[in-house]
């Protein structure tokens, strides 16, 4: 069971439709999933989920940058996590990174810098962000565009982040994350 965390500000009435439902549509092809808004997620509420995906949000929406205390559960979480755009930025902030202004809107070329489970080579992605993450030393950089870091992995945990929106033109990235951490429930 996948937990998809809605990272959108309550100010945006369609953030859920635009940034969460497309992830759910991809995930549900492979596994059951549940959506919770980030305000509802607490460490105890993670029981029963095998993996967690933090959604992206609108270009103007940086609400979770100021709410990192609500995501302290990420530090103790042993489950695989994939953060998308605002999800990646928030993960990075929780682990001591910082954000800096970097605008990329539209199809953007990125280059893989370290072998990983989610993607390989040079490819085009849909970017929609005003800020990029400068990750802390806890993370390896997996991919970069000409302007900024586009994908990270925690050095000791299965915690991944992508700045681009894989749900738009790179759904395989989400599928590979889900398939890489399949839980075998056979007795």
């Amino acid at each position, binding site marked *: 069971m996948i937990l998809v965390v809605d990272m959108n500000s309550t*100010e*945006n*009435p*369609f953030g859920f*439709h*635009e940034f969460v*439902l*497309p992830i759910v*549509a991809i995930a549900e092809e492979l596994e059951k999933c549940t959506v919770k808004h980030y305000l509802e997620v607490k460490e105890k509420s993670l029981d029963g989920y095998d993996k967690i995906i933090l959604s992206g949000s*609108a*270009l*103007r929406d940086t609400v979770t940058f100021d709410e990192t205390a609500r995501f302290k559960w990420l530090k103790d979480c042993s489950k695989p996590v994939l953060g998308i755009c605002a999800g990646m930025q928030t993960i990075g902030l929780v682990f001591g990174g910082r954000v800096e202004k970097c*605008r990329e*809107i*539209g*199809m953007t070329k990125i280059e893989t810098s370290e072998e990983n489970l989610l993607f390989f080579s040079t490819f085009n992605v*849909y970017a*929609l962000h*005003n800020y990029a993450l400068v990750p802390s030393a806890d993370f390896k950089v997996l991919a970069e565009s000409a302007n900024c870091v586009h994908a990270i992995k925690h050095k000791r945990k299965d915690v991944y982040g992508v700045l681009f929106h894989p*749900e*738009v*033109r790179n759904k395989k990235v989400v599928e590979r994350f889900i398939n890489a951490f399949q839980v075998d429930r056979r007795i």
Partner: protein
Amino acid sequence: MRIGVLFSGGKDSTLALHKATEKVEVVCLITLVSENKESFMFHTPNISVTALQAEALGLPLIRKATEGKPEEELRNLEEAIAQAIKDFKIDGVVTGAVESVYQAARIQKICNLLGVWCVNPLWKRNQKALLEETVAKGFKTVISGVFAYPLDKNWLGKQIDEDLIEKLMALSETYGLSPSGEGGEIETTVLDAPLFKEKIEVLDSEVEAQDNSGVFRIKQVRLMKK
């Protein structure tokens, strides 16, 4: 949130308008009238009908003409959204974008520059489900343009109903057409929808078509009581 809807008069922007109305205050419509029939940004067939659609909806319409040159039409769109911000104090723009990153990214950039939300309630939705939703909601939508093989003049002016959706889905499977015309294969005009206080009656029209490209040109229309 006060919203201006980017409105072409077709099924997607009209459906986005209906969805927006459920959650925010829609205060105006914004239409770009492009002289470029090849525009990747803006719908062109029957764009003049948007004036009557706005009247039927009871919403003010900001209409901006553009020659449709690629960069200039974006500047004209920016001017139109800026006017909506000034005249109607909008906080955001709703679009009917479903799949086109070309359109979506450009509108995102303009909204970002102007400091308003860009909201896409139909983004990445299943295209067949969207077509079915318009039919279920009671939209009267006609095909006003076809621009891809094997579509031809026989499709022009046809109303989108369940049978027509099945035919589009069959073409989608065989020829890879986007069933809702996301690649510009089809353009549509909405003549009636739940938020229309009056419906639009077509009094005179003509079909102009050659091979797999053509338009259903609406020449004379009037509003009718529903």
